[in-house]
């Protein structure tokens, strides 16, 4: 605060005669000089000739005109600082909408929501920040929502947890769940189709390579590999998905295929440079070691009530309907 004194000395003579408009512009000037905010003390020192009432009037007018913001000081609790409105944000369309908010409480809430960005903020966290009662806060949020200034987005992680963010923002993938979610619902069908398509493509590739090199097992194997980027471009061309899929998206699909035991993965050093660096993931469809385990070829292997089956009683192999069907009785 010591460095404020020389500057305040400069301003003093100009404020010798009281003029409300003049005072307001002086205060604004002062605020511009201190982008971090001006405290009451600085104001008092800068304008020693002006009464408290005059100053309060001027500041209130500036606040009403949204020229400055009133904030609580972080360094000295209990005191307030005045800060000039962000010049950069002024050009932003969201702020110009936000500027239409007249209610100060709504404004504060709006600001908090704005700060949270595209991650959104939970209602409880807003309440902690503004220290408003839940009913009032609810009302404010509702009114902001009806003005289409903010929106509520359901998080995929917790069904009931709603987060608020500015209306025109796209929610972060961690909230919507990324490509595989629409309306906070997991699109199992979409994933299944992609899964099948990838498997089909790799299968076709393997059959092609077997036809191409009937006498060379090594070439059969190597040419049946497909890289993930290759698969992405093919799948995007097929137009299964309305959104363009990324390599990561397809790789997570391919991972499920690996777990399904249908394909295998090989990592090789790539010859051409790509986004991944020098490594490239190659995939190839494989055949199972056995056709099917003998145990599942009879009804007992897949019997849903196997654990309730006993020698005597209602469920017994002697009268089992599954066995009857299997044996054509």
């Amino acid at each position, binding site marked *: 605060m010591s460095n404020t004194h020389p500057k305040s000395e400069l301003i003093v003579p100009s404020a010798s005669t009281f003029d409300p408009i003049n005072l307001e512009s002086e205060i604004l000037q002062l605020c511009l000089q201190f982008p971090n905010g001006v405290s009451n003390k600085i104001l008092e020192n800068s304008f020693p000739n002006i009464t408290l009432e005059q100053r309060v009037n001027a500041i209130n007018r500036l606040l009403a005109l949204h020229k400055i913001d009133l904030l609580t000081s972080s360094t000295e609790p209990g005191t307030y600082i005045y800060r000039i409105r962000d010049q950069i944000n002024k050009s932003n369309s969201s702020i110009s909408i936000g500027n239409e908010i007249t209610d100060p409480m709504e404004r504060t809430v709006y600001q908090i929501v704005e700060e949270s960005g595209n991650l959104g903020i939970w209602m409880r966290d807003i309440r902690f920040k503004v220290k408003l009662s839940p009913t009032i806060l609810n009302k404010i949020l509702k009114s902001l929502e009806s003005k289409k200034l903010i929106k509520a987005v359901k998080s995929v992680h917790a069904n009931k947890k709603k987060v608020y963010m500015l209306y025109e923002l796209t929610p972060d993938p961690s909230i919507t769940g990324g490509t595989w979610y629409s309306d906070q619902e997991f699109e199992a069908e979409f994933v299944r189709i992609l899964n099948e398509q990838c498997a089909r493509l790799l299968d076709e590739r393997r059959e092609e390579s077997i036809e191409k090199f009937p006498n060379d097992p090594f070439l059969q194997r190597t040419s049946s590999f497909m890289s993930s980027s290759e698969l992405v471009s093919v799948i995007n061309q097929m137009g299964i998905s309305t959104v363009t899929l990324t390599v990561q998206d397809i790789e997570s699909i391919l991972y499920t295929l690996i777990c399904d035991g249908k394909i295998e993965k090989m990592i090789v050093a790539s010859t051409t440079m790509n986004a991944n660096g020098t490594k490239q993931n190659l995939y190839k469809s494989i055949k199972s070691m056995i056709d099917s385990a003998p145990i599942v070829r009879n009804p007992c292997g897949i019997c849903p009530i196997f654990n309730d089956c006993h020698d005597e009683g209602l469920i017994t192999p002697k009268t*089992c309907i599954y066995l009857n069907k299997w*044996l054509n009785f």
Partner: protein
Amino acid sequence: MTTHHIRLAFDLMGDLFPDETSKEVASYLNRKGPLPFALLVRDLNIPAVNIARSLATLAIHDIIECHEDARTNSKRILYAFNLKRTLYILHYSKCIHCARQLYGFDGELIIEELLLNGKQRMSTLLVTVYERLIKAGKDPQIHSLQSIKESFKLLVSAQFLQRITINETKSNISTVVEESLTNLVQIPEITQEGWKYLLSSQQDESNEPSTKKFKSTKLIFGDEKIFWKVNFQRFFAYLRDQELIQAFTNRIDQNAGEIVRTILRLTEVKPSPERTIPISFIEIAKTMATAGLQMNEDLLQKYINLIMDDVNNCVVKVGDQGRGTYIVDFQKALSGLTKAHIQSFLRERFGSNALRIYNMLEERGCLSQKQIEDMAMINAKEAQQYVYSMFIDGMLTLEELSKANDFNPTRTFYFFRVNLYNGVLSLLDHSYKTMSNLMQRHQFERERHRKLIDKRDKVDAIIHSLREQNGEEEQIKEVEDILSPMEKEQIQKLDAAFRKIDLAQLQLTETILLLEMYLSISNSTAPVQKKTGSKAVAEKLLETTVQR
């Protein structure tokens, strides 16, 4: 050892030894542990003669073992039930089938006779097999005693038969000595006199059983103390090899299967349960060429490179001598095959999504419920169901990790983990019960249609005798008509059903064999289920971060 395990064992025993005494004695011994004869007589309400007889029979089959009481140093002899050996009965049909494929009719009958009688002398065995062959209407020109002996020799040299001698030095118990490797392949020379006698009985070609003659005239064949029994381990190894070859054929192609077959055949003579002896590339190429497979060395090398990368990498290169030396690691092979069986089982029983979760857990080590839901790309609710149903069936294990030692659910992490050993135990139990169920159903249907089956048997017998006496076609037709069309239809249905059950049982033995071999060879054990304390938490977190 589970209820289903024991149950299946006794079902099998009941099939092979239909007398009630054997089953009763065995089950009593199973419950009580090793017992002396006197206690058996006292506790069981069965005449001592019968007990002695069934003990003797079962001992010949190795189902009951007798040994001296080591604790009291007395000369008491204890009888113990061998559950594991009892389950070998399951694989009898496979062994017989094997012998037939490898050594034709003679081999099949030799193995069958030995399996039915436990242990036998070569001389008696040759005679019985010969008689059965003649009875089955085989040409005596092709199947002579000499040819049967040749087959016997082959079986012995391939170690499918095991030579044992009776050691009677001890006074009260004749111990059975399984001989060392060098002696194993030696075939006893039958004395000139005995051989002549055998040949003469062959030339008689009389259909009357000649065994009676043996008993009356005490001839010395020179192999009185040498008995033979089936070497099950060898058969199992052979069956396992077949599975392995099939796996390679499925994965790569026919040629790869043939190469693996060659490798396994070259190394089959000195089997160790865990790996084969090293075999060089040159040897493989040479054998392939003599077997008449068209493959140049370049291609062979390519195939071998592929084979090394497949089926859980069970073919391993161990050196460079002889243009590359390879061994087959059976531990890896078996765990690969076992995994394939478990995966197939899971896919059919719970669906492919469950299989996905299982494989994911296997790859990632352990995951919490939440992580599984996120990574499996299926609906969270479905994922939960799959995890829990697999957990109930014992395919997954749950690890509880508590921050405090009170295992308060809110402060405990629950991790699911795949443990192959546990999964195998669970699948094996499932297989045993399935086998029991199929046997039970078979039995039940036979009882239910007893009358019909008896009638059919009678009709068949009449027709057979009529044919032998060159009966009139009309007459035969008349007899055939004893069965009404309805009955005929039912019999057909019944036969089809029995065939189906038999086939299912036969296939199931493959799985059981593989799983049992896996259990015997694997050294892992059931995991620790609960851990607590900050140290464990830290270890777990470290483990998960390393896996990431």
